[in-house]
């Protein structure tokens, strides 16, 4: 097995502007925010995203002017409200937004992950997601039953970026036994030509090898793995820490105004030179430890 452990900056340098990125995480959980901040720091832009329920990633990248297009099922902050920067950019026509139902993204990612070019779907029949997106939703007929379907193209991404849990230096990423499985991270990973993952902790390979069924993402899918404790902050990483509601509320307050949010981006994204500097900037490990939950075994 090849060693794939690298730094956050090095991993992100591999992503050229104009890339299509599939994104792990769901709602306020395991969003790959350390990667997102580094993407903004490095000035990478013109991106297309494939997302499930996206909160901070789509919103921060929209604020940084780094998005060309997004394809996903939901853009918002769960119980805390809408995604203000995303919303502004969408309303001003600065981002091409293609809406898909949950099953639409799932089958598109499954198709990509299985090496297929499209997948049939019934969910979008009669909807405006289909009517307004003839590029990506086209009518077909089942050759066996004659039923009408929509064909949706595979969501093959240049890169998948994701955050979560623990992994070894070879890129094997494992789940805890008790976790929140309301996500499609494994499908996202399989749909990316290159997978760049961050984890809370790098653990010895022996620990991974002892429980191979807990491996969600195997090393052969992964191109780079990065250790980034609190890498989902201000979102949660289930089993490790809860969402930082205080920070998220401050974020959303700043996001009400474009200028105010640019100041947020300066302070929390552009100026801290590294993820470690960011963690200091949001209160340091002492404060962050208060978000931690008891280890679940």
């Amino acid at each position, binding site marked *: 097995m090849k060693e794939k452990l690298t730094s956050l900056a090095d991993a992100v340098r591999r992503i050229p502007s104009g890339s299509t990125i599939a994104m792990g995480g*769901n*709602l*306020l*959980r395991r969003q790959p925010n350390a990667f997102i901040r580094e993407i903004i720091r490095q000035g990478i832009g013109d991106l297309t995203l494939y997302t*499930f*329920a996206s909160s901070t990633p789509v919103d921060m990248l929209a604020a940084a002017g780094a998005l060309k297009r997004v394809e*996903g*099922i*939901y*853009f*918002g902050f*769960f*119980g*805390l*409200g*809408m995604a203000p920067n*995303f*919303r502004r950019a*969408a*309303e001003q*026509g600065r981002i091409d*937004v293609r*809406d*898909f*139902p*949950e*099953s*639409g993204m*799932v089958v598109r990612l*499954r198709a990509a992950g299985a090496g297929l070019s499209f997948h049939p779907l*019934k*969910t*979008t*029949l*009669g*909807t*405006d*997601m289909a*009517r*307004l997106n003839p590029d990506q939703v086209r009518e077909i007929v089942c050759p066996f039953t004659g*039923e*009408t379907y929509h064909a949706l193209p595979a969501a093959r991404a240049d890169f998948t970026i994701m955050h979560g849990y623990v992994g070894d230096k070879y890129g094997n990423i494992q789940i805890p036994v*008790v*976790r*929140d*499985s*309301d*996500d*499609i*991270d*494994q*499908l996202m990973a399989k749909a990316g030509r290159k997978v760049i993952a961050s984890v809370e902790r790098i653990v010895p390979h022996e620990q991974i090898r002892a429980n191979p069924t807990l491996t969600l993402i195997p090393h052969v899918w992964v191109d780079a793995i990065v250790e980034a404790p609190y890498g989902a902050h201000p979102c*949660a990483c*289930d*089993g490790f820490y*809860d*969402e930082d*509601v205080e920070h998220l509320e401050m974020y959303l307050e700043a996001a009400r105004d474009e200028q105010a949010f640019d100041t947020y981006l300066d302070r929390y994204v552009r100026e801290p030179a590294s993820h470690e500097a960011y963690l200091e900037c949001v209160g340091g490990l002492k404060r962050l430890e208060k978000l931690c*939950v008891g280890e*679940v075994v």
Partner: protein
Amino acid sequence: MNGGAVTCTLNELMASTISRMLYDGELGFVGIGTAGRAFTLAVGIPIVAARLAQMRHAPDFTIYWGNLLSPDLDDIPESPLQDTYTRWPAAAALSDTGQKLDMLMRGDFDVSFESAAQVDQFGNLNITLIGDPKSPRVRLVGCLAQPEHLAFVRRPIIVCDLNRRTFVEKVDFITSVGHGGGTRSRRDWGLPGPGPWAVVTDKAVFDFDEGSGRMRLRSLHPGVTPEEICDLMAFTPIIPAEVGTTPDPDPEDLRLIREKIDCHRMLIRA
């Protein structure tokens, strides 16, 4: 709501009304999230209704809540953080969200609960955007799995407060397909589910006319008039000659809601 001996709130009336729409042996889906009134409509009232149904007449009504099948709903914290969801006791939390979507698409679900920014006379729903889709005046959240609910679930129940901003003649964007108004009928598209089944609001209950697919007044909540209903809707629903009154919850319903199901008022909040 004070026709009988016990006075109930509108939310309790809505919950008990919905509970009578849930049958033994069914599988129902309830979403998670959102805050304030939207939480009460989309999550709180449906969960109270489902649990009340389980306690009264449908012991084998099964709840799929978020990603949890048959969760323990005895104690709902007010603002659950991630760790509460992570450790929530339940019969099953399947390996990824795709499993739930497969179950929806293969027709496992009998009932679902929908809230929306716009509902039109055919029960088409919009949670995606307001205004011209090419340059929306207000960009909303997207789709989630609501299109699946209206495409595949046997009896989707719409739960919304009645007002002209929500109950529009034509939705600006069809996120989820109702009984018509698009370019083809549900049958012509081959949508497997029959479409929205009922609309429960804070003023009245509606269903849909089988022929025209239009929304039809089924019962008025105590003290509400048909004129009041029409003032609160941007279209005129079908109003039958005889319209009944939505029955009040019986005292045992109210006792269960207040003492067993939602004793800390965490479900019915606003």
